[in-house]
C-alpha cells in the first residue's frame, strides 16, 4: 500500500468517531498502528456480534492522536447532509429507477429462461412479455420533482391512476416485481453530501463547533498524553478492560502478538496510589506473563513517566 497524503475523514456523530471506508481502516492499521473496534453488524445477520464490519469505532484517544498528527480530519457527518436541490433529487431518483428497471429485466429474463425449461404454455409467456412492456413504458414517465421518493417505481405508477383515495399496498398487486434496494454504507456518492464546510483539521476547531469534546478535563488529557506516549514508542494499543487496566500494550499488530503490558493512566505525579493497587495489578500481570505499567502524566511538563511492576519472585 502506498502512502496516502490525504487526511482520513473521521465521521463524527453524537461525539463518537467512525471510519466508514475499509481502505481508510487498512491505512490506519498498517501505517498508523491504530486498530479501533469494528462495530457494524451484517445486514442479514444482525443478531450476531462475532463477525463485525464497518463502521470502525475509534477510541477518543485515537481520534485526538490522529488529528494532532494531521493524519485525519473530523467531519460533522449529520451537517454534511444538506437538503438536496430539485435537480439533484431528480437525478438520484432517475438513477434509482434505472437500476430497478435493469434488475427487473434481468429477473424476468431469468424467469423466462426457467419457464422455458419448465415448458410453460405459450400463452403465459406472451402475457408475461406484455406485462414487461407495460412496465417499461410506465417507468419512462418522468418523475415529479417534488415527490418524496419513498415508493418504488412500480408502486407509484399504480398509485397515480388509482380511483381509490387510499394508497394501494404493493402486496395486493400481482404486477409488482421485486427488485433489490441497495443502501450504501457511505454517503460520499450523494451529490448533496458536502463536507467542505463541516470538516475540522484541529481538535480545538471541532470543540469550538461543538461536535467533539475530548479531551475536556485532566483525566482525559492524561489519557491522551499516555496513549500518545506509548504509541510514539511504536506500540499498538487496545482497550485494557480484560486485564483491569486502561490499555493493553502490544509490541506489534494485536493479530500477531500477545500484549506485553497492561497500562494504567495516573493523572499526576502526586495522585494517590494505594499499595493494594500495586499488589493487585502486579500479581495479575505476573500470572498472565505481562508487566503492569503505571503511566504517570505530568500536565505541566506534558510528558509521561513509566514504572513497570512485577511480582518480586520471593517473599
Amino acid at each position, binding site marked *: 500500500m502506498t502512502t496516502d497524503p490525504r487526511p482520513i475523514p473521521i465521521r463524527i456523530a453524537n461525539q463518537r468517531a467512525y471510519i466508514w471506508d475499509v481502505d481508510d481502516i487498512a491505512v490506519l492499521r498498517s501505517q498508523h498502528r491504530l486498530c479501533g473496534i469494528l462495530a457494524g453488524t451484517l445486514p442479514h445477520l444482525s443478531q450476531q456480534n462475532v463477525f463485525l464490519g464497518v463502521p470502525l469505532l475509534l477510541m477518543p484517544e485515537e481520534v485526538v492522536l490522529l488529528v494532532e498528527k494531521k493524519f485525519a480530519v473530523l467531519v460533522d457527518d449529520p451537517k454534511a447532509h444538506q437538503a438536496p436541490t430539485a435537480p439533484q433529487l431528480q437525478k438520484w431518483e432517475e438513477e434509482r429507477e434505472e437500476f430497478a428497471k435493469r434488475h427487473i429485466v434481468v429477473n424476468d429474463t431469468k424467469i423466462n429462461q426457467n419457464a422455458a425449461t419448465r415448458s410453460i404454455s405459450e400463452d403465459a409467456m406472451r402475457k408475461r412479455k406484455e406485462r414487461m412492456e407495460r412496465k417499461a413504458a410506465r417507468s419512462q414517465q418522468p418523475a415529479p420533482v417534488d415527490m418524496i421518493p419513498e415508493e418504488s417505481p412500480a408502486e407509484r405508477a399504480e398509485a397515480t391512476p388509482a380511483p381509490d383515495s387510499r394508497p394501494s399496498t404493493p402486496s395486493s398487486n400481482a404486477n409488482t416485481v421485486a427488485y433489490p434496494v441497495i443502501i450504501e454504507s457511505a454517503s460520499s456518492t450523494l451529490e448533496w453530501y458536502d463536507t467542505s464546510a463541516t470538516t475540522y483539521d484541529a481538535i480545538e476547531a471541532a470543540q469550538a463547533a461543538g461536535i467533539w469534546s475530548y479531551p475536556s478535563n485532566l483525566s482525559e488529557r492524561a489519557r491522551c498524553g499516555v496513549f500518545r506516549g506509548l504509541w510514539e514508542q511504536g506500540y499498538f494499543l487496545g482497550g485494557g478492560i480484560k486485564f483491569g487496566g486502561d490499555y493493553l500494550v502490544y509490541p506489534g499488530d494485536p493479530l500477531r502478538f500477545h500484549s506485553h503490558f497492561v497500562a494504567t493512566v495516573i493523572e499526576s505525579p502526586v*495522585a494517590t*496510589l*494505594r499499595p493494594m493497587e500495586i*499488589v493487585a495489578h502486579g500479581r495479575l500481570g505476573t500470572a498472565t506473563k505481562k508487566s503492569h505499567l503505571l503511566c504517570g502524566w505530568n500536565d505541566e511538563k506534558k510528558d509521561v513517566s513509566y514504572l513497570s511492576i512485577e511480582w518480586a519472585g520471593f*517473599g
Partner: protein
Amino acid sequence: MEAHPSYHLISPFSTKYPRAAGSLFLAYNDIVYSQQWTDVEVLDLEPCSRAAIRGRRPNAESTMNVVPCTLSELISLEWLENAFVSLDNPPEVFLAITSEDSSIVYYKISRGIVKPPL
C-alpha cells in the same frame, strides 16, 4: 523489644520515623532471617520519611534495594521517584508491602518500560 537482635540496628530509624517503624522492622527481619540476604544495611530515605534496606540475595552478585511500606499507606509516583533518586538511581526498587497481621509481599518496581521475563 530491646532484646531482639535487630533492635539496635533499627532503633535510630524507628525514633526518627516512628510511623514507618513497624514496616521497617518487619521487612528487615524477613529479609535477614527469612530470605537470608547477606551484607544487609539500613539506609536513611529522607524524602520518603523512612529507612530503606539494601542487601544481597543468596547466590546473587548485585545488591538490591527494598523500601518498606504498609498496606494502608497512601503513596504516589512522586514518592516512588524520590525513593529511586535517594537510592542512587538503581534500575529497580523492591517495595515491601506489609499488613497488620505481619504478612509481607515484595513487588519489583522498575523505571521505564521493562519487558516481562520470558
